[in-house]
């Protein structure tokens, strides 16, 4: 079993390296190799599942590691940890990953640099699997950074486009801020454990030792917040969420894989993995829950005024991630992970079918996507699967989204009432913006002559539709997956409450209905922004997060930068660097004079050296 997990981890790495060295000039071959690699990993994950299920213990946990750096303060290992949570994530990452790789083969086929694309994508898969399989903090951090790097490479894939390059930078920098917090958290925890004589980075060992010693609450609070900062960065929680919408500059399959199903889920996954730590700090959990709740509503409301289909889905992702984080903050990792799983299915589905639409219609603006005959007829598979995804997102039974959202709402109902109301409100917003999207794209027929000149949309090829169908299937049936054996140790499913179910379904239905009624006949959004500070304005400015950050950078940071630049140029470079370089040169020339080339000088130096040594050690030191 352990070998299987190593195979899963290293296969994408090997394909990435192979493509990088040999196949950059043969994009189609690269695509085929990468997809086969992911499929192989998926099959290994299935085999792993089979093996795992056939083990006799109740909830087995397996670990295996190699000593990597033997002489650091605490020996650093490189290992795998296999339990239910791991296997679940492995299946998600490799399974959805394979589908997206397959989809990419068709989506990116006209792009000549897609060899690099598949190399980066495989590298990403490797990094993500590394996080999933890791059994200690250091390894997780290393792969965490690698995921950030791969994400940067993929977001900025079309780096010739300025917005893409900027978006990549933004993503990297924002998550970096989070990573600092994470590092501080990790090191503080290690430092404390080391001061008690049990310094280790290994998850299982820490969990075990926490049962015997207890960490003082302020420290634990700080550690958890630090770790959560990193998680917030990766999973795009407020206020570190600003990078995710911009990340839509990357190719759509990238958005599907990274920004819907896997990378952003890494934070939630880590939260679940480390839940034993967070569980001991109710204060931290409170912060986490509120962050999740606020992010959910914030994103949900901004999504209402977006015109780009991918941005809508991006904000939707932010919102759903908020739900997951909320669930974990409320002490129910089961609900959070359940929603992660179902969200992976239907969000990937939504992104991929959106991609299918974009691919066929050559536009991302929802106001320009209607066709004369109606998309339902010209692109049936895409349309139907998109609907299914929408239904799952809104939480309509019997889709998987319904079950997972239910469990989160149930958990919220036991917590703070404000959070509960926020969660419910978001159900409304979710359906509203999705309703708006569907109405404008699918339920309108275009009448203007301009839009008739668009290419008549055709359904996409099998490489794109098969993944859609498979994902749609899981979106519907995923709610019935037996996830208990995998997540059972971490929480429970709340008892089913019929009232709650009815309320949420009603809210969802209302949201969709309102949107449909409002946008059914509209052909363009109100352009005028004459009244300042209207709700619409605030939403369009995304609650001014970006503006505040920008202002901070311009007024504060740039002035600091100017002073630092002066200091750097004068003192550091001129005095320090060049000065030390000059000094070194002078000393070097001094040394050179010793190498006179005359052998007797060398011999003299030799003899003198021996004499000095003998004098110092024997004659003056009395030994």
């Amino acid at each position, binding site marked *: 079993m352990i070998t299987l997990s190593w195979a899963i981890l290293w296969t994408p790495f090997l394909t990435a390296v192979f493509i990088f060295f040999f196949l950059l000039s043969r994009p189609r071959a690269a695509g085929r190799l990468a997809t086969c690699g992911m499929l192989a990993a998926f099959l290994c994950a299935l085999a792993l599942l089979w093996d795992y299920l056939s083990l006799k213990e109740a909830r087995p946990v397996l670990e295996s590691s190699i000593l990597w750096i033997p002489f650091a303060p605490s020996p650093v290992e490189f290992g795998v940890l296999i339990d239910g949570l791991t296997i679940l994530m492995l299946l998600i990452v490799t399974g959805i990953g394979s589908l997206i790789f397959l989809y990419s083969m068709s989506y990116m086929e006209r792009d000549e640099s897609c060899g690099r694309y598949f190399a980066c994508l495989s590298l990403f898969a490797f990094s993500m699997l590394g996080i999933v399989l890791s059994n200690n903090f250091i390894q997780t951090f290393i792969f965490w950074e690698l995921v950030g790097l791969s994400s940067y490479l993929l977001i900025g894939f079309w780096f010739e486009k300025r917005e893409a390059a900027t978006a990549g930078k933004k993503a990297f920098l924002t998550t970096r801020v989070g990573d600092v917090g994470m590092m501080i958290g990790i090191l503080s925890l290690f430092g404390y454990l080391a001061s008690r004589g049990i310094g280790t980075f290994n998850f299982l060992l820490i969990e075990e030792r926490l049962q015997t010693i207890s960490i003082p609450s302020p420290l634990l609070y700080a550690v958890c917040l630090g770790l959560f900062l990193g998680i917030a960065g990766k999973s795009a929680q407020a206020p570190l969420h600003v990078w995710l919408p911009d990340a839509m500059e990357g190719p759509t399959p990238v958005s599907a894989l990274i920004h819907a199903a896997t990378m952003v889920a890494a934070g939630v996954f880590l939260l679940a993995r480390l839940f034993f730590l967070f569980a001991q700090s109710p204060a931290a959990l409170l912060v986490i829950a509120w962050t999740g709740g606020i992010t959910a509503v914030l994103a949900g409301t901004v999504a209402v005024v977006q015109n780009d289909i991918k941005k809508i889905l991006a904000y939707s992702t932010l919102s759903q991630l908020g739900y997951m984080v909320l669930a974990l903050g409320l002490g129910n990792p089961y609900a959070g992970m359940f929603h992660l799983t179902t969200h992976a299915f239907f969000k990937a589905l939504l992104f991929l079918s959106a991609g299918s639409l974009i691919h066929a219609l050559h536009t991302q603006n929802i106001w320009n996507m209607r066709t004369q005959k109606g998309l339902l007829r010209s692109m049936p598979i895409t349309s139907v699967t998109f609907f299914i995804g929408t239904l799952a997102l809104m939480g309509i039974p019997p889709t998987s989204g319904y079950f997972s959202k239910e469990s989160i709402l149930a958990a919220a109902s036991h917590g703070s009432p404000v959070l509960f109301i926020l969660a419910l409100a978001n159900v409304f917003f979710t359906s509203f913006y999705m309703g708006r999207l569907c109405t404008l794209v699918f339920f309108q027929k275009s009448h203007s002559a301009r839009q008739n000149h668009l290419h008549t949309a055709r359904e996409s090829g099998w490489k794109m539709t098969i993944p859609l169908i498979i994902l749609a299937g899981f979106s519907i049936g995923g709610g019935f997956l037996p996830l208990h054996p995998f997540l059972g140790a971490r929480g429970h499913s709340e008892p089913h409450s019929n009232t709650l179910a009815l309320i949420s379904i009603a809210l969802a239905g209302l949201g969709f209905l309102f949107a449909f009624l409002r946008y059914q006949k509209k052909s363009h959004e109100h352009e005028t922004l004459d009244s300042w500070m209207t709700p619409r304005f605030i939403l369009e400015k995304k609650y001014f997060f970006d503006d505040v950050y920008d202002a901070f950078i311009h007024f504060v940071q740039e002035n600091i930068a100017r002073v630092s630049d002066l200091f750097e140029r004068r003192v550091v470079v001129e005095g320090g660097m060049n000065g030390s370089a000059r000094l070194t040169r002078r000393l070097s020339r001094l040394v*050179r004079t010793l*190498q*006179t*080339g*005359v*052998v*007797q000088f060398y*011999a*003299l130096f030799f*003899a003198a050296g021996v004499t000095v040594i003998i004098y110092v050690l024997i004659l003056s030191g009395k030994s």
Partner: protein
Amino acid sequence: MIPIGHVLIVSGILFSIGLAGLLIRRNILLILLSIELMMNAANLLLIAGSALHGEADGQITAFFVMVIAAVEVTVGLAVAVLLFRTRQTVDTYDIKWLKG
């Protein structure tokens, strides 16, 4: 039996003479001679030690050292001849093309 202290002093003097010779003389052949002298000073020690402790080890070692010294001088001579053939000099002050 000569007191060991005397032997030590004599061999020390020999060694120093050899060392001085190496440092002062400019002719490579004389440098090789000086090296011989130094090694023979060591031989003196070995033989004296052998007499002091009543063991043959020192004398055997001295033989080996003599052989090795001879080989060294041979190689040295060969290189000196090589040098002379190329540059017509065996003065160590002249061979400073490699420096800095």
